[in-house]
C-alpha cells in the first residue's frame, strides 16, 4: 500500500466560507453598532470585537481540522457524542447552565457562553457518518437503523428540553438527509418523516407559545406587540430594502428588531443590500452547498462522503431555515444564520465542521475499509450473485491502522 497523495483543499468551499464569515463580521458590526452602546455594555464595538475573536479562533480550528486526516475525527466520534450529551445535561443544572429569556442554552465560561447544542449538531453528524459508513447497506434494515435513531432522538430531546426547537429541527433534518444519502429505504424515510411531522405537531400543540408562533406565522400582524413583533419588523426590513437596498448602515429596522445581530441579522442585510444582496448571500450558500456536496460525491469512502455531506447539509439547512423564518415562510424557530449571525459557539463549531469537509477534500482519493459493511454487502451479493468476498479484519480505529488501511483507489 502506498501512502495517499494529499490533494489541495477545495478552493471554492474555502472562499465561500471566508467571504461569508467576513460579511458576517461586517453585518454584526452594522446591525449592533447603533444599539450595542446602550445595551448596558457601553461599547459600540462589543459584539464585533467578540465576533472577530470567535472568527479567528474558528479559522484556527478550521485549519487544524483541515490538516488532520478525516479518519482521525472518526476516533473522537463516541467521545464527542458523549461530551455533547453531558454538556446538554449540564445546561439544565441550575448554577451551571445559564438561561436567557426563559431558555437554558448556555454554560458560562469566563466572559463567554458555551452553547452545547451547537456542538451536539456536529456530534450527531459525526456519529451518523461513522455508524452509517460502518454498517453500510445493512442500514436498509430497520433493526440496524433504529438504535442509531434512538441516539439521535436522545440528543434531539435534550436540545428540545432547553427549549431550542430550531436546533432540534436542524438535528432532525440533518439526520433525515444523512439517512437518505446513506441509502436508507424510501418507505422508512417516509415513515421517519411522518413520525417527525407528528412529533413536531404534538410539540406545537403542547406548548402554547409555539402554537402562538404558528398562528403568527400565518398572520404576522396578528399580535404585533407580542409574538408578531420581530417577524413584522423583519418583513418591513425586507420590504423597505426592495431591489437595491438602502445602502450599508442605512437600515432602520435594526432599531426595532431585538438583538438584530443574532438570528434576524439577515433582515438587516436584506434591508441594506436589497434583493440583490440577498441573491449574493444565497449564491454564496449555494456555492458552499454545491462544493460541499461535490466533495461528498467525489470521495471514495462512505465515511468521508457522509461526513462532508452531513456537515454541508447541516449548514445549508440551517441557512435555509433561518431565511425561511424571517421571510415568514415557516414558523419562527430561532436558528442563527451560519457564519453571519453573532454567536461564538455556532461560528466556531461551523468553521471546525468546514475544516473537516476541507480535510475530506484533501483525501478524496483514499478508500476506507468498512469491514462490517463489506461483510454484510458480500453476504448480500453472494446470495444474489453467487460470488464470495472475504472480509478483512475487524475495523478498529487506531491511528496506525487508519493510515495503513487508507490506500489509493484506482
Amino acid at each position, binding site marked *: 500500500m502506498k501512502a495517499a497523495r494529499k490533494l489541495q483543499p477545495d478552493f471554492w468551499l474555502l472562499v465561500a466560507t471566508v467571504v461569508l464569515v467576513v460579511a458576517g463580521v461586517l453585518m454584526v458590526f452594522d446591525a449592533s453598532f*447603533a444599539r450595542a452602546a*446602550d*445595551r*448596558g455594555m457601553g461599547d459600540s464595538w462589543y459584539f464585533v470585537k467578540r465576533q472577530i475573536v470567535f472568527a479567528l479562533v474558528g479559522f484556527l480550528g478550521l485549519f487544524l481540522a483541515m490538516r488532520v486526516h478525516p479518519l482521525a475525527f472518526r476516533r473522537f466520534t463516541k467521545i464527542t457524542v458523549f461530551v455533547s450529551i453531558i454538556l446538554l445535561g449540564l445546561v439544565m443544572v441550575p448554577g451551571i447552565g445559564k438561561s436567557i429569556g426563559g431558555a437554558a442554552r448556555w454554560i458560562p465560561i469566563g466572559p463567554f457562553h458555551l452553547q452545547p447544542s451547537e456542538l451536539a449538531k456536529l456530534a450527531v453528524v459525526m456519529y451518523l457518518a461513522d455508524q452509517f*459508513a460502518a454498517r*453500510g*447497506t445493512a442500514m436498509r434494515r430497520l433493526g440496524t437503523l433504529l438504535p442509531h435513531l434512538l441516539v439521535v432522538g436522545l440528543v434531539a430531546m435534550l436540545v428540545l428540553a432547553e427549549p431550542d426547537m430550531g436546533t432540534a429541527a436542524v438535528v432532525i433534518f440533518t439526520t433525515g*438527509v444523512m439517512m*437518505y*444519502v*446513506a*441509502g436508507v429505504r424510501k418507505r422508512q424515510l417516509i415513515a421517519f418523516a411522518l413520525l417527525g411531522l407528528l412529533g413536531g405537531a404534538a410539540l406545537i400543540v403542547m406548548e402554547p407559545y409555539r402554537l402562538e408562533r404558528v398562528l403568527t406565522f400565518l398572520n404576522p*400582524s396578528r399580535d404585533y*406587540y407580542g409574538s408578531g413583533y420581530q417577524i*413584522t419588523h423583519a*418583513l*418591513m*426590513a*425586507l*420590504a*423597505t*430594502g*426592495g*431591489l437595491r437596498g438602502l445602502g450599508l448602515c442605512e437600515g*432602520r*429596522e435594526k*432599531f*426595532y428588531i431585538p438583538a438584530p445581530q443574532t438570528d434576524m441579522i439577515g433582515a438587516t442585510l*436584506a434591508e441594506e443590500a*436589497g*434583493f440583490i444582496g*440577498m*441573491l449574493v448571500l*444565497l449564491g454564496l*450558500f*449555494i456555492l458552499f*452547498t*454545491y462544493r460541499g*456536496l461535490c466533495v*461528498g*460525491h467525489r470521495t*471514495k*469512502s*462512505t465515511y468521508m*462522503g457522509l461526513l462532508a*455531506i452531513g456537515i454541508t*447539509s447541516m449548514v*445549508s439547512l440551517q441557512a*435555509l431555515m433561518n*431565511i*425561511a423564518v424571517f*421571510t415568514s*415562510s415557516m414558523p419562527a424557530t430561532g436558528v442563527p444564520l451560519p457564519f453571519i449571525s453573532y454567536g461564538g459557539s455556532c461560528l466556531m463549531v461551523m468553521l471546525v465542521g468546514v475544516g473537516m469537509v476541507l480535510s475530506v477534500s484533501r483525501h478524496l482519493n483514499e*478508500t476506507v475499509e*468498512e469491514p462490517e*459493511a*463489506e461483510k454484510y*454487502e458480500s453476504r*448480500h*451479493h453472494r446470495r444474489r450473485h453467487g460470488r464470495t468476498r472475504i472480509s478483512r479484519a475487524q475495523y478498529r480505529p487506531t491511528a496506525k491502522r487508519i493510515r495503513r488501511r487508507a490506500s489509493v483507489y484506482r
Partner: protein
Amino acid sequence: MVLRHLRFLKRRTVWLLVTFAVLYVLIAGRLFYIQVLNNERYCELAERLRVRQLEIPASRGSVYDRVGRELATNVPAFAVYVQPKKIKDRERVAPQLASLTGLEESAVVRAINTGGTFAYVGRQLPVGVSDKVQEANLPAVGVLRETKRVYPSRSLCAHVLGFTDIDGRGLEGIERVANKQLAGRNGHIVAEIDSNGRVIPETRRGSVQPVDGNDVVLTIDAYLQHAAEDALAKSFESHSAAGATAVVLDPHTGEILALANCPTFDPNDRRGVQPGAWRNRAVTDLYEPGSTLKLLTVAAGLEEGIPPTEVIATCTNGGIPIGRRRIRCSLHHPYMAGHGGVDMFKIIRHSCNIGAASIALRLGPDKLYAYEKAFGLQDQPGSGMPGEAPVLPLGSPEAWPAIRLANIGFGQGVAVSALQMASAYAVIANGGNLMSPQIIREVRAKDGTVVRSFSPKLVRRVVSEETARKATEMLIGCVNEGTGKTSKIDGYSVAGKTGSAQKASTTGRGYAAGKFVASFMGFVPARNPRLVICVVVDEPKGTHWGATVAAPVYKEIAQKAMWYLKVPPDEPLKEDQTSGSNRMNVRKVNHRIGAGNTG
C-alpha cells in the same frame, strides 16, 4: 470495497443537490416576492410605525411686574413614560421604576396597567430623575423633555397670575386670559424613531421651529403687591376673617399696582388648596359697600349744586321715618344723641346715614341712579382679569320706593366689587375721571420688542374737578377728625372713608346677625394722590368696624408705598422714629422679593 453503498451515496447526493437547489430557488422567489413584487404594504406599515411628527414645545412666555421682576417663568423638567404593551416583566419594572423616580409604586403600576401604547408615569420631574431613568435603560421606558411653570415668588400675586395645567395651558388669572400671547406656537420635527421613541440619527425629514410665547408685563408692582399682601394677611389672620381684599390703583391711569386677596395659595403647588383660595375676590366677589358709598352720594349732591356747608338733615338717635320704616345712624361717643344738624363735611366725617339718605332723597332716584352708573358701579370694570362678577342691577329707578332710594344713599342694597369701589374712589382722587382699571401693561416678544402696549383708558368724566376737590377735603376731614383717624400717616395728608356693612343674610331677606364687611378706602397723599387704596375684610370676628379692621391695613400699605415711591411728605412730620422703623421693614420686604426671584 463498499461499492454498492458508495453508489447509493453518489446517486442520492445528486438528488440532494437538486433538492437544495430547488429550496434555494424557492427561498429566492419568496425574497423576490416580499422585497420587490409586493413590498408596498410593509413599506407603508414601516413608514407609519417609524416616521413621527415630534412636537417641539414652544417656550411659554414669562410674566413680569411693571419694573421687570419675574413673576412667572419656566424651568426645564422631564416626563417619564412607559409603553405598557411592550412591557413583559411588569413585576420587575414597576418597583425599579418607582425607586428611580421616587414615585409611588402603585402609580407606576397604574400607568403600566393602562395597557396602551403610551402612559405617563410621572410628569415635571427634575433633571436628576430623568438622568437616573435614562441610565437604567429599562425596556419600554422613556423620558421626554418638557417645561415646568414656576412662580419664583411663590404665592405673591397668585390670584392675578393664576396658574396653568400640567401641559402649560393657562387655567386661571393672567395665565388664562393671556394664554394666547404666552403660549406661542409649538414647532415639530418629522423624523424616524426607534423602538424606544428616540430619533434615529440623521433621519430628520423636516422641521418647523417653535415660536416662543410672548412675555406679559403687568401693571403690578411686586413691592407694593408684597406690602399689600403682608398688611392684608395680618388683619385677615388677627380677625379670623372669611376673606379679605386689597386693591391699590394709580388713580390717574387706572393701573392696578397691587391686588391682594386672602386666603391665598402657592400656584407652584396647588395640592390641598381650598377651591375658594383660588378666587380673585377683588373682581369675583360682590359685597355691600355700606358707608364707603356715601362719598359717591355726596359727590353727586355736590355736582348737582347742593352747597357743601348747607345743613341737610338733623340726626337724632331716634332716626327718621321713611314710609313705614325708620333709618338710623349707628351712634357712639360723643354722638350718643345723634349727629345733630349735618352738612356734607359732617356726613362724611362721621358717616351719618340720615344725612346721606337725605341727599339721596333730595337728588331723587333718576339722578342717584345716573351717578351710580357714571361711577362705574353698574358696569363690569373690564380690567382684563378673568371672572369679573356680573353686575347686580339696581333695577329701574322709577320703581324704587323711597326707602330703597334712602338705603342706596348710604350704601345698602347695592352690590359692588372691591375693584369697582377702588375705581370709583380714583374718580375723586384724579379730579373727576373714571379710568378703566388695567392689569396688563404691555406684551413683549422674547427679544424685548413691544408687541402690544396698553395705554390708560378714560371711560368718562363723572364729576367736575371742583366737586372732586371738595369731596377730597371731606375725606381728609374724615381721617383727621372723624371715623378714619386710625389711618392717619405721619407726614402725609390722607383721604379715606370707613365702611362697616352688615352682610345680607343668605336666605335673601334682611341682614345676617353678626356678619359684617369692614372696609376702608381712600387715597394718599390726599391733595396730590399717587395711590388709591381699597381694603375690604369679609366677616371679621371680634370687631367689625372699618376703622379697626381695614384702616390699619390701609395705613400700612400707604406708609410703605409712600416710602417706596419716594413721595415727599406734604405735612410736617411729628415723630422721626416711625419712619425709621418703617424703613427697616421695607428693607426686609425688599429682600424677600429678591430672594424669591432667584428661585
